[in-house]
């Protein structure tokens, strides 16, 4: 008898998880980091691994931190949007290459074009945890004082670029 009830038990456990999962909407912004200083890190750059980059280098500038990876499908959807944004020279985009192999990441950028001023490599995904990265891609708007002002989960689309990110960037740059 017991073994026949097992599928039901497994399903009940799954249903509980799905229910909890519903309240953890991955596209919403539950990030406690908004309004807080961007977590510090020092990571090697993708193209020149002997050089490091840290958010502290960006004090005094408004910038975007975009979390991406060569294995990420949604990044492909987002990629042309970032390329367009980079060409307009409104705001610098820095990339955080998340849990990726550097060789594949470089190939990915060669293939699709490189919208980033530079990318840093987070091979282990440690910094991703500090930033509360859920899915790749994610994009953070960071102000002149190094405070996270906005977090976009999922791909940046022309719509939310126009309606959310760019107005916010303009406002922060004016301050």
């Amino acid at each position: 008898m017991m073994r026949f009830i097992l599928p039901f038990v497994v399903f009940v456990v799954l249903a509980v998880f799905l229910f909890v999962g519903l309240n953890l909407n991955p596209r919403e912004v539950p990030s406690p980091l908004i309004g807080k200083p961007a977590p510090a890190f020092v990571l090697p750059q993708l193209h020149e691994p002997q050089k490091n980059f840290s958010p502290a280098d960006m004090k005094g500038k408004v910038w975007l931190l975009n979390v991406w990876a060569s294995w990420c499908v949604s990044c492909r959807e987002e990629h042309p949007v970032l390329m367009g944004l980079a060409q307009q020279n409104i705001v610098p985009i820095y990339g955080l290459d998340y849990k990726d192999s550097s060789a594949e990441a470089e190939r990915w950028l060669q293939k699709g074009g490189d919208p980033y001023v530079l990318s840093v490599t987070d091979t282990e995904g440690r910094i991703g945890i500090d930033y509360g990265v859920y899915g790749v891609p994610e994009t953070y708007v960071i102000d002149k004082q190094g405070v996270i002002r906005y977090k976009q989960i999922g791909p940046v689309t022309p719509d939310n670029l126009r309606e959310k990110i760019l107005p916010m960037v303009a406002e922060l740059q004016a301050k």
Partner: protein
Amino acid sequence: MIPEIGHFSLIVALFLAACLGLLPIIGAARNDAVLMAIARPLARGQFVFLTIALGCLVYAFVSNDFSVLYVAQHSNSQLPVVYRISAVWGGHEGSLLLWAFILGAWTLAVAIYSRHLPDEMVARVLGVMGFVAVGFLLFMLLTSNPFDRLLPAAADGRDLNPLLQDPGLVIHPPMLYMGYVGFSVAFAFALAALLGGKLDTTWARWSRPWTTVAWVFMTLGIALGSWWAYYELGWGGWWFWDPVENASLMPWLLGTALMHSLAVTEKRGAFKSWTVLLAIAAFSLSLLGTFLVRSGVLTSVHSFAADPKRGIFILSFLVVVIGVSLLLFAWRAPKVGLGGKFDILSRESLLLSNNVLLSVAAASVFIGTLYPLFMDALGFGKLSVGPPYFHAVFVPLMVPMILMMGLGPLARWKKIGGLELAKRVRWAFLSALVIALMLPFVMGTWTAMIALGLLLAFWIIATMLLGLRDRLLGRSDFLQRVRNQSLSYYGMQLAHLGVAVFIIGVTLVKGYETERDVRMDVGDTVSAGGYVFRFDGVREIEGPNYIGGRGHVVVTKDGQAVTELYPEKRQYNVSGMPMTEAAIRTGLLRDLYVSLGEPIPGSDGAWAVRIYIKPFVDWIWAGCVLMALGGILAISDRRYRIHSKRSGAKLGNVLEEKTA
């Protein structure tokens, strides 16, 4: 007016579905012939009203009725008519309507092609399907009505997502839904058998053709989706392990297991409770797939809307349908008994191992897909699982499965000698091994993965030839023997050949693809894989609802012209989304694939251009088509035709006894 008719039809369909979900099942329990007999008319009525509803929505799209919110969100007056029709299922509400319509069509089909079944079985099967339909119709009417009005009407619509403006996407969702929903028939048969308490071999026999048809649609649907990703995303990949792709792969894997398990249950009476569980699980995963896509619990390129209210509804519905069926299983299955005995090495045991491996594969995809959600719910932080996980678990599971797949058709039921079997297949194995070891040298590069992939593919082919030889060659007339084999035997072999062709495609494209990502000025040439590509610049084009550039690339080999390719970069007017249209020259042995990256700023017409040579890539989809054709052959078998009255010495021919 027309949208209101659609809305009203949905309400009528809900009412009919509710009657269908209750009355015939009660009738079957009380042995009330009248209540059982209304199942068929209700199924017909439900289908008629669902057809009217779908027709009204199509009409609203074609006539650009932007006073309907759903139309305003997913269409535009500039959109070509064919995409206005496919835009019907381009969003959440319309997808649900299509789902419900297809469920209605399957229910109608069961009502029509079930004349030879006992009345109470028909009543229960149609009742279960009606119950499922209630869930979807309620969901639509309560949270996602496609006929909601937008007043005042929009001047024009927001346009269909450009990714979906593609011929492949016109038929991909209906195909896939035919598969998803088709598993509801096997599910309904399994539940009907559990409800009736008669889990004999007949229900397996009845649900086999339905399962196979659903599986055929699903195979084609997934293949179409993968093909679309290949040519539309412009990156030359064909499978991304995206949550929504996985959502279709899981029921496919279990559906494949179910087809094989049903064969054993029908022929040998074994695995009865396992088969029932598989039938429940395959449909449950179809429903779960809908939940994952529609609730937005996972981020994916496919998720359209993340509305928690909808998520809660689908989850409750899942809990009712799956929970009830698993409880029913726990209650009834222990009384089933074990069925025919078999030895540790027999066709049964080989099929059982295949079944287990397929289910484990489905479970590993499941874990990989939902792992981020589990970890997040447990408070272990947010993370994501990429293709490396899936490659690492999938390949080791598939290798033993394919090896056994070669042996299965050769093995006898009940018992076979291990030594005897090994002796029979030794030449098949050796020839596959030799080909697998040598062929990569001929192709240019030898790697272990290529050799392994080829070994598996040629192992299937060699054992298939062996099986055909044993059956077809002998003293008696060859043609007579060819005719004597059943269509389902040929169907099985064809589907297995499809797997071999698929593996060859996957292996060779992974092993030998060439990629060039280069900056090209007008007139530049690039050589790749023996071909020379000359870039003749990009000129501006204007489509019905987009503007863009069309590149011109001339391909030559040894100075001979091969083809000219016209990759495009489009910018859609309404959404502003940039899209890449790759240009592909398809060939039996290789695809030439060119897509435009970005214009190089400050240059004189130079572009970043991606050039791929993809050897054997079309074999991937050809393999899927062969699998589907195999399924079609199998269901064309004589014994599945209606009113076939073959008196056989086979087990479980209660059916014939009842109808004769």
